[in-house]
């Protein structure tokens, strides 16, 4: 009786260890290689849907510092650390960025900013409805989470 119980206990333990290992593999993949993410809202409009797109992000380029102007990135919001933003990098440290100060008005007033050391300048593709570096300034590179490299079309689901 006891012997049989021991065998069962051993089997259960082995199963639990396997599950834990699997979770570890998932965590490491998610954190260091590739992870899916949901991009919502109007700020990236022509590029991404307003109703939400699943995007695949890779974590290797930000770690190696290979993120440059034009890349779409996932950034932890400097205003609310629980939120992540999907934006496009417009400039890296030392770059001079020119942007339309107030696109809703018609007076095309341009403003220029220099991106400080260790920072990046992020902007949404939809300049009319995006809260980005034009409001809160350049963000530290350390807030950069991942680079978006693939958009999974959810067209069929809509």
């Amino acid at each position, binding site marked *: 009786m006891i012997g049989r119980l021991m065998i069962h206990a051993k089997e259960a333990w082995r199963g639990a260890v396997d599950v834990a290992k699997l979770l570890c593999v998932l965590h490491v993949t998610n954190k260091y290689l590739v992870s899916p993410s949901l991009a919502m809202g109007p700020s990236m409009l022509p590029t991404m849907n307003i109703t939400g797109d699943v995007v695949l992000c890779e974590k290797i380029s930000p770690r190696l*510092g290979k993120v440059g102007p034009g890349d779409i990135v996932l950034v932890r919001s400097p205003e609310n*650390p629980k939120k992540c933003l999907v934006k496009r990098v417009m400039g890296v440290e030392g770059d001079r960025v020119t942007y339309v100060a107030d696109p809703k008005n018609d007076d095309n007033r341009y403003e220029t900013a220099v991106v400080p050391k260790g920072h990046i300048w992020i902007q949404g593709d939809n300049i009319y409805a995006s809260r980005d570096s034009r409001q809160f300034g350049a963000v530290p590179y350390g807030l950069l989470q991942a680079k978006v490299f693939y958009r999974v079309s959810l067209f069929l689901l809509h």
Partner: protein
Amino acid sequence: MGTRNLLWSFTKKYFTFGLVGLTISDRYASIVPVHGASMSPTFNPGTKSSGALSTDDRVLVEKFCLQNYKFSRGDVVVFRSPTNHKEKHIKRIIGLPGDWVGTNINDVVKIPDGCCWVEGDNVVSSKDSRTFGPIPLGLINGRAVAVVWPPQRTGKVETIVPHGRFSSP
């Protein structure tokens, strides 16, 4: 064939160990060394600012605080430097979003949403928010809870609320 099997099982074991270790250090807790004298009475009290002694403190850093980014004034936190993402600093939180913090040049700043004001305990040699301003909470990587090495210095890291430095609305 025997050696190859042995090698394979060895590699597998190492790999699993690495994965598990990485997961634990990312999600739950890790141990980091503290360099320099910027937190001097709390960590590395004996170190002069020049020359690294071999008695660098090792600190246990917990990561549970990252789940909802709830910190209190006086917590010692590890964060990525806002000017160089490869460096990590350890400093004490002086002010949280909405607080007014007095900097040392007779100046008072309001801390914006999602940011905090960090300073080293050693006012003389510390590069902190007085040089680079408030930092986003998103840069924070963990909270120091205890000194674990060297053995004679082990103990809890105290939360010292900096009375008189901030005023919250």
